[in-house]
């Protein structure tokens, strides 16, 4: 069985090496999608032994995840895991995702809301709003629609189509599982919050923009 980790990265030079190093023991291949970074992200990823796919210009999280899933498909992955490059996710939890896929899930979401430990209250509120928007627009209820720690089965890799480019991809992936009749499972994860990872999140205005794009995604 081939497990491929996908790390979308935009200017993550300060944390990426550690993330790759701690991920490698749990997967067969690490693919870093360098989303038009201005720093040494690509060089660091390459030096750490990851496969690097570089966007010539920055296209956003959704575009990077789409490219990563396509790369995983070309690498004949049986399981693809996405995790953030900012060190927020603990790679030691990857086996639990793989187990869930082996037990029949097509997409696994690592939910921070099932444990909530260490999660700032405003992040909990933002996530809850994201869950409500996802439910209202796409009719699927999950406890952490915005989580970046996910796993995909080969079937999911072959059927999921990503159209959105930016943060709205999280809700779109949930919507795709319903549209393509894929089995969605959530497992609890423990997020690691640092000053750095908190600075990478969505602010209020980006959240509004994401909402607008999701409405358009629903209409188009």
């Amino acid at each position, binding site marked *: 069985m081939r497990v491929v980790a996908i790390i979308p990265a935009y200017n993550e030079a300060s944390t990426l090496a550690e993330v790759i190093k701690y991920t490698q023991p749990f997967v067969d291949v690490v693919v870093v999608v360098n989303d038009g970074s201005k720093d040494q992200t690509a060089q660091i990823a390459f030096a750490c032994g990851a496969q690097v*796919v570089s966007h*010539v210009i920055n*296209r956003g999280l959704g575009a990077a995840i789409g490219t990563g899933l*396509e790369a995983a498909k070309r690498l004949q992955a049986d399981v693809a895991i996405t995790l953030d490059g900012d060190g927020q996710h603990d790679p030691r939890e990857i086996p639990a995702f793989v187990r869930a896929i082996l037990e029949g899930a097509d997409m696994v979401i690592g939910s921070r809301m099932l444990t909530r430990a260490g999660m700032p209250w405003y992040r909990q509120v933002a996530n809850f709003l994201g869950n409500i928007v996802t439910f209202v627009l796409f009719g699927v209820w999950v406890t952490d629609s915005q989580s970046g720690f996910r796993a995909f089965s080969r079937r999911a890799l072959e059927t999921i189509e990503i159209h959105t*480019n930016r943060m709205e991809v999280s809700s779109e992936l949930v919507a795709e599982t319903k549209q393509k009749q894929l089995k969605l499972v959530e497992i609890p994860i423990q997020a690691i919050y640092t000053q750095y990872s908190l600075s990478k999140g969505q602010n209020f205005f980006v959240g509004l923009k994401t909402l607008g794009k999701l409405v*358009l995604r629903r209409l*188009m």
Partner: protein
Amino acid sequence: MTFLQGFLLLFFLFALVRTIKQFRKHQMPVYWALLWVMVWLIAGVVVLLPQTTDIAARLVGVGRGVDVVIYLALVLLFYLVFRLYARQETIEREITKLVRNIALDRKEDDADKTV
């Protein structure tokens, strides 16, 4: 005819000619050309004969003709903004496809070189 009426009529005439030219060069589909021709003709009639809007106002139950024009203009503007937004979104998706294919092809080229 006031100066403003003359100016607006000239502008609508210019816009009408541009629409027809674009349609002839196949740069605009027939339904869009028809819609825009209608918009410019109606706008011309409204500017030349403002009292005609009162008939429309009575028909839809709005007090003054000029209010009907403003409401319709707002609806049209909202619709056009939505269309532009949707078009921009489509272009964004196309750019992403292009960037993705370039990225994946380059990676495969690099892999071929190292074999």
